[in-house]
């Protein structure tokens, strides 16, 4: 009788089992469920540009695309997410989030990514200042170590371990620097530069924020911009 009972149980399980449901993220006005391991694979199922315009020639001008003698392909740039949500802040409790930038069809001359922020993390008149790291010496051009729980601010790290092209100042995973301000006098020097042509290149970014006990509660935000540019 054991075998028929087993057979019946298994059949019942299959027939009455609930349908499979898959979701990467769901959200409404009250909550968001987010899978931080969202794949950033460039969607190969979507045809990448099936038609291409031809370079034009008119009276008094001629146009060429790319470099002579090299194949010219569409240039692609993807981000894994449009928001970096640090969630609930608590003093001396640094929060780190990550995201991935992806370059596709990098041309033979390579490509760069520049980045800047519109302003520091701000909530009305209150500001979470950009980090100056543990030494107080890091800035928009120089990264430095930031591990001290009593060092406050907001900054980023570009992961060198699997990415050739980030600044070599990010020697360790503890090296951070602040984002350049859009309105500052500092030119937008590239966050990432590669001279190697590749079908795809991922750049892994870390974002860190830490506040002190005197920071006023509020909803702090800013806008970070990433612009991918083919090299010449």
């Amino acid at each position: 009788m054991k075998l028929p009972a087993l057979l019946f149980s298994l059949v019942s399980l299959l027939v009455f089992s609930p349908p499979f449901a898959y979701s990467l993220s769901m959200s409404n006005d009250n909550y968001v469920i987010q899978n931080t391991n969202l794949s950033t694979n460039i969607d190969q199922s979507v045809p990448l540009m099936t038609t291409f315009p031809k370079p034009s020639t008119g009276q008094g001008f001629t146009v060429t695309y790319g470099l002579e003698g090299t194949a010219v392909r569409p240039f692609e740039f993807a981000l894994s997410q449009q928001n970096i949500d640090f969630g609930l802040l608590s003093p001396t409790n640094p929060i780190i989030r990550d995201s991935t930038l992806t370059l596709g069809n990098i041309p033979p001359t390579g490509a760069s990514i520049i980045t800047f922020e519109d302003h520091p993390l701000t909530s009305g008149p209150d500001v979470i200042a950009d980090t100056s790291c543990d030494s107080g010496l890091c800035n928009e051009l120089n990264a430095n170590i930031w591990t001290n729980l009593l060092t406050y601010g907001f900054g980023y790290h570009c992961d060198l371990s699997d990415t050739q092209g980030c600044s070599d100042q990010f020697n360790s995973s503890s090296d951070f620097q602040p984002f350049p301000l859009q309105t500052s006098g500092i030119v937008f020097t590239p966050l990432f530069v590669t001279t190697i042509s590749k079908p795809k290149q991922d750049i892994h970014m870390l974002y860190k924020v830490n506040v002190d006990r005197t920071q006023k509660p509020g909803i702090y935000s800013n806008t970070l911009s990433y612009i991918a540019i083919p090299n010449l």
Partner: protein
Amino acid sequence: MTPSRLKRQVFLAFALFSLLSFFAFLSPAKTYAQISFLGTDLAVFPPVITIHASSQTTIDTPLTIQNLTQVPITLSVKFLPFIPSNQENGSIIIQKDQNVPFLSRLHILSEAIAIERITLAPKQQRQLHLTIDLANEDLISDEYFIIVFLSNSSTSSLPKDIPFRAYAKIASGIAIPVLLTKKTEDTSPKILVDTFSTDPFVQKGPVLFTIKTMNQDAHLVTVSGEITIRNLFGQIIGQVDLMPTLVLAHSSRLIPSINEANLADASSQSLRNFGGGAVWTESFLLGPYNASLNLLVDNKYPIQKSVYFFSFPLDLFLGLAAGIFIVVLLSKRIQTQMS
């Protein structure tokens, strides 16, 4: 167990397997919650536009942008001037002063209407037109700018009930560099090879060459060519093809070889990091060599330069010599002991 009972058990097991397989195919259809794609994915073509303008004219050239995600996206369209980076590797720097009067002559048209914003449906590909109004002015010097398509992120999915939190919105942008230059008469451009060098002594390949050109002209030029390597007897034993390269006005540029793209997979870390140079990948070298650089500027004007280097596998020679010495010493000792 009797044979008949065994047969019954086998039959029941087979029936179970068949039933399970049957229901596996008939299992309820999988349902997928709607994916709210959190990222952006944009593509543009072409990646670089070079325009040669010879007279007062209005320029019109097409370009394409595509939204590769499954959600619509709205992009703002901007023009930003740039200068070549002092890294001399083709990367650019956005200029501090973005209030350049020339930018007012630029427009992006969608179906003949000038736009500053564009909305792309999921997976939509749209052709646009870049127009440049030079009808009332001569182009004296080159103008370099990028066309930037920049998204605005949405924060509608973020929870609003946490009183003390932080978030950063991310705007994604993709750009097309545009190089506007004047067609010049047939005069030789003012460009020179500032550096053509390699290590004078190497033990083995690959051999790395540094080539730097300096454009002292007011207009960009295209440089192409190759490096020819000759041995002691004047025989050509190798050739390195150089990548056609744009050298912008009043700037310097390192010239890479076409095979540099393969260096990303090279086993040597120093080779992977060697950017902006030419590589001769021959591994075994012996004796003196002459490397001749043959450049062609704008497909018309030749420039030549030479460099010499010497190769000797010193490590290999020392290793062999040490091995021979040890063998001779041992054999002499053996002979001495035997006698």
